[in-house]
């Protein structure tokens, strides 16, 4: 789950890390009032869960309250990569002398949280990692001992020799670690972390992603979820316990197991087609899930054929067949469905589907090829 910049900053402030003062507005008038309260130059920033909002025009400087109102009016309602901006953060503008990147991720190789820091902040850090890897400093933390001040300080001294910046950066890094652990994050960033010409340091932007698996014990964080910032079908899928990612093709895929689902997508492309989605119905063979999955896939008008690929290990093929029959009864299905069911009780499932309009296939390759044919046929 993604947390907005302004929400992440609230978590920083709760732990004593100062951020430039600011507030969220949902109307230009609110933005004006906030800018007036702050006084002087402000920044108006779209609160949406996509990268590159600056380049898309979602971040603007305003020299006074009137200008803040105008900029907010321009940004609110704007569409950034398919998401409508509903909120802006109006925050005091700080003078920038130099910009740093400070982040913390859960590192798979060390099995531990790992700090990532760079003196080349303010830009795309992934770009820096590729073009100038020597500018990226990392430090894995043994979570049993937690992050220690000396570690944050050591890392800070790798980026700068300025004791005042080191002090502010050490505090910021320790706060990142505390928020990361306390909120079960998978990623947290301050980019840029800024030094002003006066020698002050400020956390100017913030990003925080939370481990979905830990949300059950993070009621305060869960309450921060902004449904307006998410794809409707992905919300529905999540609520039904399905793993779903919308893609651009015309073959709807419904598979059990993430690995098999990816392999199925790959196979669709291997044979020259384009999948409409990634969808893992999981280990359970609950017929309701199949119905929901079908409904979500069918909502996409681009879908010209549906491909079921089920390997019945624990999931019993007859259960999936039952769900499938139920779904075709309950829903209007305007596109052909290719079904490949193999494994536990596959014979029983095959019998159940006899007489239905479903198109059977024995192997993955056969199923994918049939679905592609039908999708292309439908597109004619």
């Amino acid at each position, binding site marked *: 789950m993604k947390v907005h910049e302004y929400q992440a900053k609230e978590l920083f402030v709760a732990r004593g890390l100062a951020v430039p003062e600011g507030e969220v507005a949902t109307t230009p008038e609110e933005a004006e009032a906030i800018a007036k309260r702050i006084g002087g130059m402000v920044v108006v920033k779209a609160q949406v869960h996509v990268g590159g909002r600056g380049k898309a025009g979602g971040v603007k400087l305003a020299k006074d309250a009137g200008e803040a109102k105008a900029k907010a009016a321009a940004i609110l309602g704007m569409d950034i990569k398919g998401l409508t901006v509903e909120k802006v953060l109006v925050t005091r503008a700080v003078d920038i002398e130099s910009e740093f990147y400070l982040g913390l991720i859960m590192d798979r190789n060390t099995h*531990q949280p790992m700090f990532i820091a760079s003196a080349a902040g303010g830009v795309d850090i992934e770009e820096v990692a590729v073009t100038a890897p020597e500018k990226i400093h990392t430090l894995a933390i043994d979570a049993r001992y937690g992050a220690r001040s000396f570690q944050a300080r050591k890392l800070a001294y790798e980026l700068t020799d300025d004791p005042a910046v080191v002090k502010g950066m050490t505090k910021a890094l320790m706060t990142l670690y505390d928020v990361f652990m306390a909120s079960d994050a998978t990623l947290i960033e301050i980019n840029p972390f800024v030094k002003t010409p006066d020698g002050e340091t400020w956390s100017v932007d913030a990003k925080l992603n939370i*481990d979905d698996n830990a949300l059950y014990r993070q009621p305060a964080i869960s309450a921060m979820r902004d449904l307006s910032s998410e794809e409707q079908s992905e919300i529905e899928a999540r609520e039904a316990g399905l793993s779903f990612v919308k893609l651009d093709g015309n073959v709807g895929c419904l598979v059990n*197991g993430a*690995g098999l689902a990816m*392999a199925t997508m*790959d*196979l669709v492309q291997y044979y020259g087609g384009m999948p409409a989605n990634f969808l893992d119905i999981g*280990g359970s063979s609950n017929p309701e899930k199949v119905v929901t999955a079908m409904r979500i896939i069918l909502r996409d008008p681009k879908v010209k054929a549906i491909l079921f690929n089920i390997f019945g290990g624990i999931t019993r093929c007859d259960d999936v067949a039952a769900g499938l029959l139920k779904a075709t009864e309950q829903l209007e299905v305007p596109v052909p469905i290719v079904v490949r069911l193999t494994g536990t009780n596959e014979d029983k499932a095959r019998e159940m589907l006899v007489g239905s309009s479903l198109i059977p296939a024995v*192997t993955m390759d056969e199923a994918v090829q049939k679905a592609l044919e039908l999708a292309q046929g439908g597109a004619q």
Partner: protein
Amino acid sequence: MSVFVDRDTKLVVQGITGRDGSFHTLQMIEYGTKVVAGVTPGKGGQSFEKVPIFNTVAKAVEETGANTSVIYVPAAFASDAIYEAVDAGCRLVVCITEGVPVNDMTTVYSYVKDKGAQLIGPNCPGLISPGQCKVGILPAQIHREGHVGVVSRSGTLTYEVVDQLTRNGLGQSTCIGIGGDPIVGTNFIDCLKAFEADPQTEAVILIGEIGGEDEEMAAEYISRHVTVPVVSFIAGRTAPPGKRMGHAGAIVSGGKGTAESKVAAFEAAGVAVAAKPSDLVPKLAERYEPARKALQAG
């Protein structure tokens, strides 16, 4: 031989009275796995299908000599269950549970390592040494005893591959699902090391997916230490960056974890990479005589 589990595996099932735990306990017993104990706090003294239930793993180990644990408890209790199994002296702990917070796994990983135990999973289907022992939720009927080691980050994709092996007359030494989470107890290298040391294993199929660098590290390891032929498949070649593909670990981010990188690493290490699952057995046949013969016979 086989790796990690065999006829000497004495299993304790944590969460034996739960829906999944009870179902799979029956399946494992049916397969011949020595299920010696179950644990459900508060149900100590009862039994499930003649398997005695204990309140704690410590008691179960003490009374039955269990050396391996399999975990079917809900995600919120899974990390505690791993600690408990390791603390009680289980040398191998297989955590089937999915949805364990990754934050929990950092310290669990350290604990397991500290104590010299081995954890497989979480979020994994378990493992099977066909004809000897099954621990987890893998569908037993598709497996057959033989000489191909299989290791994978996914579940059903592995069944797909195993099914092809078996249909082609190629049995397996051990099939291990290491799990799809960012932090898992056992990685590809651990399994490759075990397969290489196992006299029964003559070839290895490795099924990777996007995300992380486990495949790249495995490739490096294979080029230095593995003499048996290895054939691989990488799922997620067409997955868009920044989108998590079901498994918590299956995501391409920060320019890392791409399928291209993994395929390139394997090819550089002399590992054949199949373009699609159905190419795996033919690829194997190119470097493993029994597979060639089996294909010809089939």
